[in-house]
């Protein structure tokens, strides 16, 4: 491609884009004189306003007020939350406002709007915030007080690997179904005592494939050698589910650094033979990747 022609074309694009549309939209959003009438327009105006370090204090104050404003609809409040999250990525310049931001997140953690609540709780949980963790634990122990679903609560608590939620995760695993049961299992991957549970679930062909896949990952995390042994059997078992076989084989291929791996020639031979036997595209593709990894 001719670089000079490419430059000319690109500069023309830039000239076209330099029209001051964005600036006008930003100013409209920030003037006290009049907010746009529709919620969508107000949300767009919040997103269009520049996120610059200059004038940051006023901008943050306005955004925090919008997030808290229960008269504003969800789209507008979420746009303000998005802008605050983006400012948080600035790091040091945002530091003076972090305490106020965190307090606002705590305030909206019990907001009537579920999406806003979840969003705030997740951000707090990522920060290992004890206030949010207490709310989540209380909801799991007393479902009437739950402010997010059981699945979300256990997922958010899992952001803190020091939160000692394993006993709670065990309870949820035993009583729950669906997504909450899966999320509880994910948390149990940090619990050495759950190794037997993962082994049993991974081997159990009657279990849901999503549960078996999480168990594969959990077992590999807790005891890579035990996983390797079980996974090899699953891969070689023609009667097992091809999705589980493909994922187990992929986990074997990438589970540890290939350059350090010495692969059992007997198992490699078994995998090579599988190429001829299986018609599953997923398994075939895993086989190909596994064999490539053994050649490097």
């Amino acid at each position, binding site marked *: 491609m001719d670089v000079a022609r*490419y430059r000319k074309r690109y500069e023309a694009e830039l000239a076209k*884009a330099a029209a001051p549309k964005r600036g006008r939209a930003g100013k409209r959003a920030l003037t006290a004189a009049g907010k746009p009438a529709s919620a969508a327009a107000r949300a767009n105006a919040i997103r269009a306003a520049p*996120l610059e370090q200059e004038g940051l204090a006023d901008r943050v104050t306005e955004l925090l007020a919008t997030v808290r404003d229960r008269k504003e609809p969800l789209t507008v409040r979420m746009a303000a939350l*998005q802008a605050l999250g983006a400012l948080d990525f600035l790091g040091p310049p945002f530091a003076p406002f972090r305490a106020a931001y965190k307090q606002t997140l705590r305030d909206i953690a019990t907001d009537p709007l579920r999406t806003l609540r979840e969003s705030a709780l997740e951000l707090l949980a990522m920060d290992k915030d004890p206030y949010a963790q207490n709310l989540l634990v209380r909801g799991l122990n007393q479902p009437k007080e739950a402010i997010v679903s059981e699945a979300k609560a256990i997922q958010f608590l899992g952001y803190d690997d020091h939160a000692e939620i394993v006993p709670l995760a065990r309870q949820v695993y035993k009583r729950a179904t669906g*997504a909450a049961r899966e999320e509880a299992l994910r948390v149990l991957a940090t619990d050495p005592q759950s190794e037997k549970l993962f082994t049993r679930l991974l081997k159990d062909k009657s279990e849901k494939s999503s549960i078996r896949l999480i168990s*594969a990952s959990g077992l590999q995390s807790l005891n890579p050698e035990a996983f390797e042994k079980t996974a090899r059997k699953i891969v070689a078992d023609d009667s097992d589910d091809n999705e589980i076989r493909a*994922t187990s084989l992929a986990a074997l291929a990438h589970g540890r650094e290939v350059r350090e791996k010495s692969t059992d020639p007997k198992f490699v031979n078994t995998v090579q033979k599988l190429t001829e036997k299986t018609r599953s595209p*997923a398994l075939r593709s895993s086989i190909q990747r596994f064999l490539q990894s053994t050649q490097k």
Partner: protein
Amino acid sequence: MNVEFSFLGADAMGRVFLTWTPVQAQARLVNPTGTAAVNITLRSAGSGGRLRFATTRTHLGTPTLALSLPVSGAPVSVFVAGEFGRPSVNLGDAVVEARGAGSLGVLGTKPLTVRVRKNAQTLSVAERDRFVAALATLNGGGAGRFRDFRDMHVQAADPEEHGNVGFLPWHRAYLLDLERELQAIDPSVTLPYWRFDRPAPNVFTRQFMGVPNAAGRVQFSAGHPFGTWRTDGALGISRTPSFAAGAAPAGLLTETQTITLGGPAPTAAYANFGNMEGNPHGFAHTSFSLGFIRAKQTAARDPLFFMLHANIDRLWAKWQWVHKRTSPADPRAFAPAVPNRIGHRLADTMWPWNGVTGPPRPPTAPGGKLAPSPSTTAPGNTPTVRAMLDYQAVGGGAPLGFAYDDVPFEL
């Protein structure tokens, strides 16, 4: 009689990787049959990547080049670069061919790879799968070298990485380090970029970056290398976009809007362009209603994070090219740190590659030195902020060894 090529920067297996930056090569006659110099024509003969040739270091190389090779076997220098817009798809699919006049025919060939970072949306299936497999291998089920990259992007390191002028150089070094580690696993791989100002339906699929279930857990196709993704003891990836798979996130500055942040030529300045750290950078992170990627301390657990930052770096590279702002001596190409923070000034070495710990640097320095590359000596294992600016070596010296599919080399 044949023609032999030699390139600086071949890897241990003799493979050569090019970008758009011309590199010096040598051609010489081996076993000549006559006494007169032999006239040859170099041409780009591969099925994938295409090449350009010149006798001087220029972006105006041509698809063919006539050379006269002395019968003594003395080498003749030539510059070879990837043809902008025609990168490789597979290893060695760009071929330099030496053809003699008349019946002499083809006297020599050398397979090369034009290796550049590409838009994730347009990757071939094979390119996509190789990238995903290499990253899964680097992660090693949570216990591999990828862990260092997660440990680098944590709250304690915030002053090194964000909210100051070193934001872009630091992340450039970070991506380069990661890319080199991926290339040590599979040399055909480069970091793709997620062009977040455009719809990317091929990216948010179960075959690539995954699709969330109702609980916000990203689901992958059977056998996908990320199917058992683990980081820091946590299983899986949490990510719920606020935009439809076939749409771009709302509210992010477009590419052209981002480029114009720096102001118009000829006054376009880094100090203004750096505002892109808020939008589009921050907004791209928070264009997800839930998930790792929207918080600094968890973002690096999600592979998408690196594709997002590859796009941020591409935007900087594009701005540098448009306004020719690659020289550290040009005050418009960079800006003074505000405040005068260590790690953000041109001459400063960057953490963690410099191994410096303790205030004002973070308490630990995970990952060691920056990974080496067989293709280039730059930026060394302890990069400075300055070394990150002229990544294509427009001003001479050694390039950093990466380029973007839509940002040319231009003197």
